[in-house]
């Protein structure tokens, strides 16, 4: 029945988790909190995150989800893929609704974790004032932003986090003219209890950051780079590979900020020891959305990454 000792029930597994520092593929629970046959695209990066993230959060939580691909993936009516309760809200109100749900839980004397889970459009553009308010009030919630770098659910329109030069359906010729907003930096300026960046290609890193967030009081913000094959213009099988390349080229960094202190996490931390990183061109050439970038633009990007990492090497 259980030859490898892998079939922990959730309580056993939580105890084991508290003993070991890091979750591995082998001790990650086999219990699933989302059913297959949901409406996400084939090869969706969000699907990987959601599936593994739910394993970290456990059953005692309520999700608050604004319009996004997650609204579709979580399940519609009459069958829903998610096994936990999900409250769908309007775009601008995600963090405000999560605040209200947490207050209701408090009134009922329940520790139920309230998790707002929104896209980049819902976070960086439309929901930012409610999130800023919740940060300022130090609400006790987890806020997850999965950043697929455009409004994907409605057909790939550019968002605040779409990188400069990216082709989208609203920037179809020469790509987005403006630079992207650095949302984690905006959140960090609010001094949250915990802030972390993650990638869909490193689901165990995300899993363990969520376990940590669950133990911290106050607003915990996680920002996750999330490859999206139809929106980024890549083959479905490349989802994990592309996210990994973003980290290994030093373009997207995995880090945590606690008590105002920034710390690089595992996969990014490892890059500090390297004299040179993979060129960012490798990442860009994997995706059709970067086809409009000129050599000059790519050189500027590379120079910015080199400068950022020179700074990291001095700091860490």
């Amino acid at each position, binding site marked *: 029945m259980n030859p490898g000792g892998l079939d922990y029930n959730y309580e056993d597994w939580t105890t084991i988790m508290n003993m070991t520092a890091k979750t591995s593929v082998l001790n990650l629970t086999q219990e699933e909190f989302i059913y297959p*046959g949901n409406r996400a695209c084939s090869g969706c990066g969000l699907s990987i995150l959601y599936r593994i993230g739910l394993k970290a959060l456990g059953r005692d939580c309520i999700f608050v989800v604004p319009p996004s691909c997650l609204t579709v993936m979580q399940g519609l009516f009459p069958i829903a893929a998610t096994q936990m309760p999900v409250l769908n809200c309007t775009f601008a109100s995600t963090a405000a609704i999560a605040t209200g749900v947490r207050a209701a839980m408090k009134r009922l004397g329940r520790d139920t974790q309230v998790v707002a889970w929104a896209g980049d459009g819902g976070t960086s553009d439309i929901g930012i004032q409610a999130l800023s308010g919740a940060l300022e009030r130090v609400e006790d919630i987890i806020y997850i932003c999965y950043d697929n770098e455009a409004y994907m659910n409605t057909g790939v329109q550019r968002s605040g986090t779409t990188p400069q030069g990216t082709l989208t359906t609203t920037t179809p010729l020469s790509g987005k003219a403006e630079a992207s907003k650095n949302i984690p930096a905006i959140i960090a300026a609010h001094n949250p209890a915990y802030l972390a960046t993650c990638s869909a290609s490193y689901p165990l890193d995300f899993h363990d950051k969520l376990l940590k967030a669950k133990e911290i009081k106050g607003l915990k913000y996680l920002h996750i780079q999330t490859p999206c094959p139809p929106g980024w213009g890549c083959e479905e099988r490349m989802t994990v590979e592309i996210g990994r390349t973003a980290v290994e080229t030093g373009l997207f960094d995995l880090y945590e900020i606690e008590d105002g202190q920034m710390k690089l996490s595992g996969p990014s931390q490892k890059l500090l020891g390297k004299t040179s990183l993979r060129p960012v061109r490798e990442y860009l050439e994997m995706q059709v959305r970067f086809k409009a970038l000129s050599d000059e633009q790519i050189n500027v990007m590379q120079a910015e990454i080199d400068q950022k990492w020179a700074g990291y090497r001095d700091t860490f």
Partner: protein
Amino acid sequence: MPDPRFKILTSASTSGPGDAGRTGSWRVERPVIDMDRCIPAKTGKHACHLCWLYCPDNVVSKDLEPTIDLEYCKGCGICAQECPAQAIEMIPDADFIKGADRE
């Protein structure tokens, strides 16, 4: 006091598989695992299981000989791309439909 009309005004779903139908029908290619190459199958010990970890649709099992639920596998090929032993091959689904040994 709970309002007896509340139920009428609320829509709620029950959780279950297949809210998008049999998503296996979206597939163009299906993953086929070569057990002679697969690390846990070959060694008889739990190891690797990366296909289980990365499968976005949770259709790979964490068994010594991993199995794939083709009813719902969307055929993305991430498992094949990430398998460190190159044990998974993506084979056109049409090959299986045409043959006499259709599953």
